[in-house]
């Protein structure tokens, strides 16, 4: 799950990491008031779930409270990569002497969180990794004991940071590791970690991703979740407990099991169609879940037909068929539906579909060809 910069900074603050002060504004007037309170000059930073907001004009400056208000009015409502800016973070401008990078990411190869630090901070770390990988020091965290401050300082020293940053930054990095583990993050970044003119070492920007699997025990962070306008259907699907990914085509696809659904998308593409979505109903789904899934997929205005591919084990074919028939009554009459049921309850399910006059495929390939043909009017 994505969270905003101001929320990531709140998490860091709770773990004792020095964070640049600031507050969130939702109107230009609020931005002006915050600028007066914290003192100018201020930076107005768009709070959106995408990177590259600086280049898009989402970071602006205000030398007076009035200018802050104007800057906020330019940034609020701005469209950045398809997302509307509804909030800005207003922070007093720091006098930054140097910028560094501290990051932790969960790494599947080492099966551990991997810490990355670099003296080349403030820029896109992926660019640094691609062009000058030697400038990044990497080390996995031993999950039995976490990251010691001394280990952290050693990493910063190897990255060539100055003494003051090794001392203060080592403490910050060890705390970042604790924040990562205890907040169930999958990514936690301070970029830049700023060394200021007056010798402070402070998080000037932060990014945290929270592991979706852990939201049940990170209920406060779960409550921070906001819809992404770029993907409103995906947000709603999550809330409804559906595993749904929006794609670009016109063939709605529903199946059970991630690998099977992915393979069905590939099969539809081979048959000349374009998948509109990925939807996995999981194991043991009842008719109601099937119906809900059908109606959900059909809400995508691009969808011109729906393919259902079920390999029944603990999912029963007749439950799936009942769900499809229930949904069909509420779908546009011209919407073609092709179902392929195999395994448990296959015979009963097919009989129900036949009685309702619905199409079925003998296997995944046959069903894919039929739905593509029906949509393309062949």
């Amino acid at each position, binding site marked *: 799950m994505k969270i905003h910069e101001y929320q990531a900074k709140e998490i860091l603050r709770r773990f004792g990491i020095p964070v640049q002060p600031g507050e969130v504004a939702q109107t230009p007037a609020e931005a002006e008031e915050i600028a007066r309170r914290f003192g100018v000059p201020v930076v107005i930073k768009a709070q959106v779930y995408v990177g590259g907001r600086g280049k898009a004009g989402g970071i602006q400056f205000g030398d007076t409270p009035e200018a802050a208000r104007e800057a906020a009015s330019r940034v609020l409502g701005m469209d950045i990569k398809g997302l509307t800016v509804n909030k800005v973070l207003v922070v007093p401008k720091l006098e930054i002497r140097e910028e560094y990078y501290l990051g932790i990411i*969960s790494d*599947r*190869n080492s*099966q*551990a*969180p991997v810490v990355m630090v670099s003296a080349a901070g403030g820029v896109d770390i*992926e660019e640094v990794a691609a062009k000058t990988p030697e400038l990044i020091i990497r080390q996995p965290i*031993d*999950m*039995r004991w976490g990251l010691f401050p001394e280990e952290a300082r050693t990493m910063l020293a190897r990255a060539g940071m100055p003494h003051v940053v090794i001392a203060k930054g080592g403490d910050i990095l060890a705390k970042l590791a604790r924040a990562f*583990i205890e907040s*169930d993050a*999958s990514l936690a970044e301070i970029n830049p970690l700023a060394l200021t003119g007056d010798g402070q070492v402070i998080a000037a920007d932060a990014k945290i991703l929270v*592991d*979706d*699997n*852990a939201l*049940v*025990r990170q209920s406060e962070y779960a409550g921070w979740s906001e819809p992404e306008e770029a993907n409103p259907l995906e947000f709603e699907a999550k809330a409804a407990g559906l*595993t749904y*990914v929006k*794609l*670009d085509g016109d063939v709605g696809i529903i*199946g*059970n*099991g*991630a*690998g*099977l*659904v*992915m*393979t069905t*998308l*590939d*099969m*539809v*593409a*081979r048959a000349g169609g374009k*998948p509109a979505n*990925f939807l*996995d109903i999981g*194991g043991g789904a009842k008719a109601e879940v099937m119906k809900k899934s059908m109606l959900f997929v059909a809400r995508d205005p691009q969808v011109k037909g729906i393919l259902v591919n079920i*390999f029944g*084990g*603990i999912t029963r074919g007749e439950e799936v068929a009942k769900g499809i028939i229930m949904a069909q009554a509420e779908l546009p009459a011209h919407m073609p539906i092709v179902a392929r049921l*195999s*395994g*448990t309850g296959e015979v009963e399910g097919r009989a129900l579909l036949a009685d309702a006059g619905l199409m079925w495929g003998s*296997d*995944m*390939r046959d069903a894919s060809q039929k739905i593509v043909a029906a949509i393309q009017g062949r």
Partner: protein
Amino acid sequence: MSIFFDRSSRVIVQGITGREGQFHAKGMLASGTNVVGGTSPGKGGTTVDGIPVFDTVAEAVAQTGANASCIFVPPLGAADAIMGAAEAGIPLTVCITEGIPVVDMMRVSAFLKQYPTRLIGPNCPGLATPGAGKVGIMPYHIFSPGSVGFISRSGTLTYEVVSLLTGAGIGQSSCIGIGGDPIIGTTFIDCLRLFERDPQTDAVVMCGEIGGSDEEDAAAYIPQMTKPVVGFISGRTAPPGKRMGHAGAIISGNTGTAAGKVAALQAANVPVAETIFDIPDLVKAVLHR
């Protein structure tokens, strides 16, 4: 012969009093698996369908001589269940649970380095050895005994492909669902090494998918094998940056793409099926090579 599991295996079900645990314990018994007990803290001394229930894995091992465990414990308790099984000396643990927090699995991974336990999964359908039984949730009737080893990251896709193999008269030695999570206990390469040593196995089918580099790692090992491997990769149409159902099925930047995995396998001389329907013929071809 088989890998991981055979007729001598004595299996306990962790979380046997839950809906899933109870249902699949019965299914395992029906497949011929020797289910000797189950665990559920607080329910020790009771039985589920005649299977004795214990409070802890250690007690279950002491009383039943269990040497394998199948975990149906809910996500937030699953890491504890895996570590408990290792601590109690269980050599084979199959974790079916989906949705375990990644931080928990990273802790499990560090913990298991100190134990000889083999973990399969999590977020997997388990394994089956046709003729001996199964540990997990696979529908057992689709299997037929034979000489082809099968490995996959997916559940229902496994059932599809195994059904095609059985329908084409190609029997299986052992089938392993390694799981769809980013952090799993047993990878393709672990299974390939064991199949290479298993006298019953003559060829291996490996069904991979987008995300991570398990398939590429396997491709680097396959040239050292004497036995042929047939590959399939799912997710050719998946866009980058989107999690395709499985937590591990995500293309990050340029890594984990279907095209990259297909190319790595082909470079290792592995025939890669365009669709699952091509797999039986490719298997027949490599067996007659």
